[in-house]
């Protein structure tokens, strides 16, 4: 059976989701999309004066689907209103729900997030909430009808990787919906670790967009996500503390002591 990330009944062709923020040019962005193999690409909504055209068209040219987010929203009310605008703009009911509680850390506001999720699910949205790496909150979001949960590895744009792998593992075990590691990915090993911990996918924006060579980093993250998924399926060896375990038998070791 083909091993694909399936959200709300839709099988995606990649477990890597690309964020569109931070690229230096549209051309660079398009090359990175192709190298990433991603099917979903996130976008934000802004007033037209602050949003040069062409982004949406570029994503469609690359054969990808837009995943609108509610970036910049600090209340459930604003996030819900933004999601409704996004649904009209892009004719998709999918939304990456972000409700931020603090400007400095950009950490999610759990209370507003859950409230917004409940409202949007009630309006027929497919809701993918950006959330704290909290197993209980993730379960509450799943109970509210979210189609996936997107826990942070570390703060947005920090590149600090997964600061609390145990919490991510516990979260993975707490919910049945797909878990997409979002925020904090700095390089390929972070993405591989996310997958090894059992995440079903990874979202990356800054790690690719701000790399010296974004196209190449997009490819690196694609391979890392695939490698991590394979490693999880393969089943890693148990860790052995403080002692080595020879993989070669001593039986038949020749005696080479000088006569």
């Amino acid at each position: 059976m083909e091993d694909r990330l399936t959200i709300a009944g839709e099988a995606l062709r990649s477990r890597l989701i690309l964020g569109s923020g931070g690229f230096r040019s549209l051309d660079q962005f398009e090359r990175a999309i192709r190298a990433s193999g991603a099917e979903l690409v996130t976008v934000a909504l802004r007033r037209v004066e602050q949003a040069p055209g062409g982004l949406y068209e570029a994503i469609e040219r690359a054969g990808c689907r837009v995943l609108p987010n509610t970036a910049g929203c600090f209340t459930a009310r604003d996030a819900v209103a933004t999601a409704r605008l996004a649904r009209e703009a892009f004719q998709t009911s999918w939304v990456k729900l972000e409700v931020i509680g603090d400007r400095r850390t950009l950490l999610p506001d759990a209370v507003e997030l859950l409230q917004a999720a409940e409202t949007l699910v009630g309006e027929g949205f497919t809701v993918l909430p950006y959330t704290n790496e909290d197993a209980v909150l993730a379960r509450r979001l799943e109970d509210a009808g979210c189609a996936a949960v997107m826990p942070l590895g570390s703060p947005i744009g920090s590149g600090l990787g997964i600061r609390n792998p145990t919490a991510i593992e516990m979260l993975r075990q707490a919910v049945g919906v797909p878990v997409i590691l979002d925020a904090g990915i700095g390089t390929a090993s972070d993405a591989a670790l996310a997958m090894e911990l059992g995440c079903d996918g990874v979202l990356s924006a800054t790690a690719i967009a701000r790399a010296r060579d974004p196209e190449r980093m997009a490819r690196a993250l694609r391979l890392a996500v695939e490698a991590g998924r394979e490693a999880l399926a393969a089943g890693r060896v148990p860790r052995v503390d403080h002692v080595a375990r020879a993989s070669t038998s001593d039986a038949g070791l020749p005696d080479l002591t000088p006569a």
Partner: protein
Amino acid sequence: MRVVINGAERELPDGARVSDALRAVGVRADERGVAVALDAEVLPRAGWEETTIPDGARLEIVRATAGG
């Protein structure tokens, strides 16, 4: 009449339609990936041509921008 488009006050002729407001900010009516909120309610594209803007209304006209 005066309306507020994306936070800026503008003068539009009485009876102006939402499509006129789009033109005023340089958006083609057939551009995809654009949405309009009229007094904080989403106005579907199908209503842009017919809907007249009430005096003093607040319009938000948005499109996709780069964002994680």
